[in-house]
């Protein structure tokens, strides 16, 4: 009887929806590519590059991992080894299998063998000039059919492709950290990217075991763009006097697997600052909220997050319960702004986060960045940690009710302005109660 009761809950519907979405996103809607990718080259042996290499060799894809410095290359190769060795320790791989898998990986400092590469994924430093330089270098050595993919998290692909001699072969392949655990791959196409390139990129992503969504090019694509406003809101809430632990508690209570403040630490405060600025420039006031200077000050003080050992929290090897970084007290005091009590209940704080997320997601669908709500839900849940029990932003909009969402947005808009202005799509759905994102 309990089973029957549970089976018809919203959560159940949401999870079933996610399952169906996953299945759908594991199909290649572009068909079969002309050529199978047999040799993959990854540029940059950093955290992301090594992670991409790991999931590729794990599935039998011959991979070249290239870096500019021996030390960086060694670190990256060691990361792949550690990742596979972890599985050996858990006994899901034998040491022999680990060594055989590693044999698929070639680490090198030069471009030897690139003439045989079918696809190059660049995961170099997030700087447009460096990416341009790398693209030009690589195009000189790769064969004509080889695809150039960029793992950038926010630089528009068309901007990267501007210096390419074959923009139809340039595509974005945005992986999520840690690459071996996060299932999502966000593929970004420009209007110049060919269908076959897209088909190839999807095929490689599926081979690596990823759940794939394909979105159009734009600042922040889909995933980074939805997260932006929510994190801006997090900063504002921090400035209004709520401490990081409370923010985490509220977000996890809502259903986010990772608390919002911890998420910022995981992403990297410097990355968050960078993204906030870039997206702010692209989208203007709507992406405002907290003061980005807060992030910048944190970066100055070296509180970059998990990667630096300190962010909102202090990260120590072997310590499970993190303590709040006491250095944050001073920073938070500096940026304090008065709170507006009418929008500061626990529920309000949660809704402020979520509505900005959902609003932005709807905006992406509206603008055609997203091709359908299913991919929107999958992307949000598997890439950003949107509460799975709610099924994703669009499923949530359906179950909570678009009208209710718009009402909440209006409530906050009255206090904070254009950052909460509901997008046209949401308004349309609010006005026709029969209209649902998911039928």
């Amino acid at each position, binding site marked *: 009887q309990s089973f029957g009761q549970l089976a018809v809950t919203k959560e159940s519907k949401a999870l079933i929806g996610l399952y169906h979405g996953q299945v759908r996103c594991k199909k290649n809607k572009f068909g079969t590519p002309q050529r199978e990718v047999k040799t993959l080259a990854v540029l940059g042996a950093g955290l992301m590059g090594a992670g991409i290499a790991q999931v590729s060799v794990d599935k039998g894809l011959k991979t070249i991992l290239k870096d500019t410095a*021996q030390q960086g290359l*060694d670190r990256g190769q060691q990361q792949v*080894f550690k990742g596979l060795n972890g599985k050996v320790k858990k006994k899901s791989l034998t040491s022999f299998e680990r*060594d*055989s898998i590693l044999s*698929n990986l*070639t680490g090198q400092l030069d471009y030897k063998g690139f003439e045989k590469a079918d696809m190059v994924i660049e995961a170099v430093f997030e700087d447009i000039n460096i990416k341009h330089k790398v693209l030009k270098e690589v195009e000189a050595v790769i064969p004509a059919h080889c695809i150039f993919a960029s793992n950038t998290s926010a630089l528009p692909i068309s901007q990267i492709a501007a210096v390419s001699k074959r923009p139809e072969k340039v595509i974005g392949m945005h992986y999520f950290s840690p690459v071996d655990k996060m299932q999502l791959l966000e593929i970004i196409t420009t209007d110049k990217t060919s269908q076959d390139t897209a088909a190839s990129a999807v095929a490689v992503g599926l081979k690596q075991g990823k759940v794939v969504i394909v979105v159009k090019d734009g600042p922040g694509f889909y995933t980074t763009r939805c997260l932006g406003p929510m994190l801006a809101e997090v900063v504002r809430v921090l400035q209004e006097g709520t401490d990081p632990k409370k923010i985490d508690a509220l977000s996890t209570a809502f259903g986010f697997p990772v608390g919002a403040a911890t998420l910022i630490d995981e992403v990297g405060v410097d990355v968050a600052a960078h993204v906030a600025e870039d997206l702010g420039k692209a989208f203007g006031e709507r992406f405002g909220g907290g003061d980005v200077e807060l992030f910048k000050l944190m970066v100055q003080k070296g509180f970059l997050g998990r990667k630096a050992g300190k962010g909102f929290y202090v990260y120590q090897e072997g310590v499970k319960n993190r303590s709040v970084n006491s250095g944050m007290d001073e920073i938070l005091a500096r940026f304090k702004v008065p709170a507006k009590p009418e929008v500061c209940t626990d529920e309000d704080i949660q809704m402020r986060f979520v509505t900005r997320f959902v609003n932005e997601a709807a905006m992406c669908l509206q603008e055609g960045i997203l091709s359908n709500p299913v991919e929107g839900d999958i992307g949000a849940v598997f890439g950003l940690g949107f509460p799975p029990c709610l099924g994703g932003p669009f499923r949530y909009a359906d179950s909570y009710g678009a009208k209710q969402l718009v009402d909440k947005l209006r409530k906050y808009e009255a206090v904070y302005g254009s950052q909460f202005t509901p997008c046209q799509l949401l308004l349309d759905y609010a006005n026709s109660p029969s209209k649902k994102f998911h039928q």
Partner: protein
Amino acid sequence: MSSMLTHAIRNLPASSAWAARVFARSLSCSSQLQAAAVQPKSKKTLAKSGVKNIVVVEGVRIPFLQSGTSYADLMPHDLARAALLGLLNRTSVPRDVVDYIVYGTVIQEVKTSNVAREAALGAGFSDKTPAHTVTMACISSNQAMTTGVGMIAAGQCDVVVAGGVELMSDVPIRHSRKMRKTMLTLNRAKTLGQKLSLISKIRPDYFAPELPAVAEFSTSETMGHSADRLAAAFAVSRLEQDEYALRSHTLAKKAQDGGLLLDVVPFKVPGKDTVTKDNGIRPSSMEQMGKLKPAFVKPYGTVTAANSSFLTDGASAILLMSEEKALAMGYKPKAYLRDFVYVSQDPKDQLLLGPTYATPKVLEKAGLTMADIDVFEFHEAFAGQILANLKAMDSDWFAQNYMGRKSKVGAPPLEKFNNWGGSLSLGHPFGATGCRLVITAAHRLKKEGGQYGLVAACAAGGQVVMLCGLAPF
């Protein structure tokens, strides 16, 4: 029979041809050579009618390291796998083109008795590619190569990968025989009473482990000891040995710094940095070396740690093909593998004299003289051993009395001899050295502009000589 004369040769009983081969290398060379000489060389080419031309396409090795350094936590098949991967990368040869893989090794890791197979599978070769492992002491990889040559010549294969590996950082240390017997019997014991009675027989001496030694089984003599006796028999002085060792290290350093050691491929060791260079090359000074005490025959011996090859970890791999196949695949081979001779002698008194015996044989069969050879690559087990061989080759007396020849073979001129260092300085992972000698000979022929190279190595009572010709590609 150990009385020795201080000068030149010692008397051996006539019946000392012993073919026991625990640490023996031998090559068998046979083929009819075509007479063609027009040039200063006795023979223009060593090609034989009706016999396939077999070529060395490429040869690599991972850096040879002193035992107990960066490779210490690995297993032999890991080193062999790294050499195979290095070879695949260097040549870009598709894995499914390789018909067979043969590896040589001496001190076997018990878990991987067919190290060639484990290394091949680990390197991503198809499980349908056969692989086997051979052992012939220090000429194990030479044996691997000649096995490969045989298979290609017989038409069974077109492409063979041969190699060698040795890991001296981890050796099979066994329980004593008594302990082993007790353990095995315990396995079979059924009742508690039987088990207890077995256990009660265990005594302290049961716990003494058995260690493998670099020694002849048939004579119970360590190789260093035998080398010392050989050096004494040929009146090779301590000074001469130290000088030779210094030469080896100096030339090796020069070659390493000058980028001549092209066969070395980098190896990213899990948990450690990428290894790119051999770490045993250390040119010292005559004074420093002079201070060392003899290592094997104390206190009057002449063989020390400085003038012997050191315990090394390493692996090598070489790609052999029929010439036809290599050209068809678009490769530029580095050398032909023409002739080889294996000989064996008495492991007691002639353990390390192999090169002297085999060199004239292979030269005769090839129709060449010592003067025709442009590049010599001999394995340097001990400086004393090399010098003793050189003296023997230069002695009419030895040739007449021991080799049944009319006159001496002639010693190889030192300016053509091991010019880029040798096993003494670069290191001697027992099984892997043979491939290193061959590919170094090939590279030297190219660099120094020669046509014929002679590779020779001794191995505990037997030896190998291989003759290779430069491939004009």
